[in-house]
């Protein structure tokens, strides 16, 4: 894409690669220098005319908001007065320190939300990546018939409304819902999913008799880090959070499956055949040929998953609103409630910026690790994005 990069005079001398093979012929018919500059002058006007709606809308509703929120995050503003007339208190970085360094409810809430989201990432990202890869490999298999039907089925949840899906999951996971009815068939009495705030780690360890989930070990409960006790940090995702994780894994695996599918089709079949002919079994060929060929895409899916996982909002809004016991609270949802429910817009904006920083770090990791093949991957991602919704 950078062949179009060096702006001035690129009309007069388009690189041979531009627009496929077409431009080579175009060069021959190109009008003389004098009229070219005339066209260029007119193009400048038209160019700005053409992009002005984009500049206006994206500037007003993407760039400007970020600037305004940065200012508001330095205020103690309740949403009533005009924040740009000096009516609201300027409190500097207090909003940031309240959620990051100063002891208090603000920090406890924020750190709880970070802990919840960390566990969310820790479970959802590997699960959805592995599931998506497995589905893609299965659907890509040459010997399976009805591939497109399966592909459609797996992808369908990804195109539907997250609100509608969350409503369905709310029904499925009720105390006497379909999931627990299914579990009863195999003799398990399922939990009350949305009201169970118990951490998964303590529940599992408690089930094995290693710890007592109801009695925190004193060493863990009395010492802490950033306003939460070690017991709380280590508790694992709550049972309620597990339903949100199930929902996200279920809806996003189809999207990532399509990304994997596109990449699998680029793995040369001869390579795998050669491995099989050389006596490798299917698993060895998959492990030693397919997986290395897919490595960049696996990495892409994991980072996209990481970025997406820190933005989890819709499902939390519909299914739990942070309850029970704040164990499904996420930073995105906390930012929303701090602003729209508690009217603490300054704190809400500060949380949004900390979240932005977290997501930027995730993006940065992706950029740095994919640097050597940045361009093809980036183009591939956009196309992947189209294909993702497309097929």
């Amino acid at each position, binding site marked *: 894409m950078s062949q*179009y990069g060096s702006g001035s005079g690129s009309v007069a001398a388009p690189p041979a690669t531009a627009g496929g093979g077409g431009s080579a*012929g175009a060069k021959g018919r190109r009008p003389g220098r004098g009229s070219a500059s005339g066209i260029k002058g007119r193009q400048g006007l038209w160019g700005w005319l053409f992009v002005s709606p984009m500049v206006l809308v994206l500037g007003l509703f993407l760039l400007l908001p970020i600037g305004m929120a940065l200012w508001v995050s330095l205020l103690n503003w309740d949403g009533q007065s005009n924040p740009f007339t000096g009516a609201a208190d300027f409190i500097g970085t207090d909003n940031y320190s309240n959620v990051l360094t100063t002891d208090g409810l603000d920090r406890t809430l924020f750190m709880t939300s970070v802990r919840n989201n960390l566990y969310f990432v820790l479970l959802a990202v590997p699960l959805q990546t592995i599931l998506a890869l497995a589905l893609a490999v299965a659907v890509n298999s040459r010997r399976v018939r009805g591939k497109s039907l399966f592909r459609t089925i797996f992808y369908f949840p990804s195109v539907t*409304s997250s609100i509608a899906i969350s409503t369905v999951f709310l029904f499925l996971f009720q105390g006497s819902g379909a999931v627990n009815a299914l579990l009863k068939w195999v003799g398990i009495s399922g939990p009350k999913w949305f009201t169970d705030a118990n951490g998964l780690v303590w529940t599992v360890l408690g089930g094995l008799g290693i710890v007592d989930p109801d009695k925190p070990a004193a060493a863990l409960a009395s010492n802490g880090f950033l306003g939460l006790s070690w017991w709380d940090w280590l508790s694992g995702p709550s049972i309620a959070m597990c339903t949100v994780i199930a929902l996200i894994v279920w809806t996003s695996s189809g999207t990532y499956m399509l990304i994997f599918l596109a990449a699998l089709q680029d793995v040369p079949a001869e390579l795998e055949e050669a491995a099989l002919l050389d006596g490798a079994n299917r698993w060895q060929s998959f492990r030693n040929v397919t997986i290395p060929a897919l490595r960049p895409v696996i990495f892409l899916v994991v980072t996209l998953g990481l970025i997406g996982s820190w933005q989890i909002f819709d499902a939390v809004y519909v299914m739990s609103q942070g309850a029970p016991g704040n164990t499904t609270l996420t930073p995105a949802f906390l930012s929303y409630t701090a602003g729209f429910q508690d009217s603490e817009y300054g704190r809400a904006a500060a949380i949004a910026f900390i979240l932005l920083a977290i997501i930027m770090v995730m993006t940065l990791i992706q950029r740095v690790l994919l640097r050597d093949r940045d361009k093809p991957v980036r183009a591939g991602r956009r196309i992947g994005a*189209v*294909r993702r919704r497309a097929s």
Partner: protein
Amino acid sequence: MSTPPTTPASMSRATPKNPGTWAPRTSRSSTTGPRAPRSTGSRILLVVLYLLLTAVGLLYLLPFAIQIVTSFKTDPDAAANPLSLLPNPFSLESYRRLFGLGDAGDAVPFSTWLGNSVLVTLFITAGRVFFDSLAGYALARLDFRGRNLLFNGLLTVMSVPGVVLLIPKFLVLNQLGIFDTYAGMIVPLLVDAAGVFIMRQFFLSIPREVEEAARIDGASVFRTFWSVVLPMAKPALITLTILSFQGSWNEFTHFLVATQSPQYQTLTTGLASFVSGSLSSGTQYPLKLTAALLATIPVALLFFAFQRHFVRSANSGAVKQ
């Protein structure tokens, strides 16, 4: 593009010219090779694969099946038999109530939600298709000062996570005085960065001679764009239309922060408030699931109607790259 060289290569491998070097391996390849006659082992493997795919497929379909069936159930039936795929008794009460025909009156202002969703989706889709094409064309083909800056800005803007903008967007809408209006719902979504990018990539793939011929014939830049280039971009335009429709129909967070009054609720914000917010009362699961189902149907139809077309257009775009 790379098909011509690879096809002969793979063929030559399938039919080796020098049988001597391949001979020692043929015995093994007859059991594991992909084109070998199927052994019992690989047949079992295939059956297992089908079983697994079917089981996972059911897991992906079952929630929708339960949703559809539950929409025809009564409240007590839905509560007592959440898993049953036969409504007993069969009831159209949810549908009647959603459209205000039931004895209990309309439980939720469903028609308002539907009307708002249709309205904003139409405007947003039309706006995105037009404005994204304009900007995409300019970024791909018109030479003007600041184009690279704009393009890099676009790439940066695309990577701003939407959730972070919840509070900031509200601040701007409030300052502009369009909070809680249709304008506040529609205008911010009229252009989307990803759509501009898609259109730009497509316009890059259209041969330049076409436009230059039109331009030599004296067509203006807009005329060239509108009557010559845009008709050639039909596959990309269809893709963009469907993506925009799906995106705005399913949009939630923007409408959540851009509006407040019930009169502006769409299917997503209305449903969310019905399920967990201010309107929420009792379980009423058949009613909730019916509302969710009706909100899903347009996007589902679109998906099933256009997916094949989409795969083709996405793939051809990839080849042109």
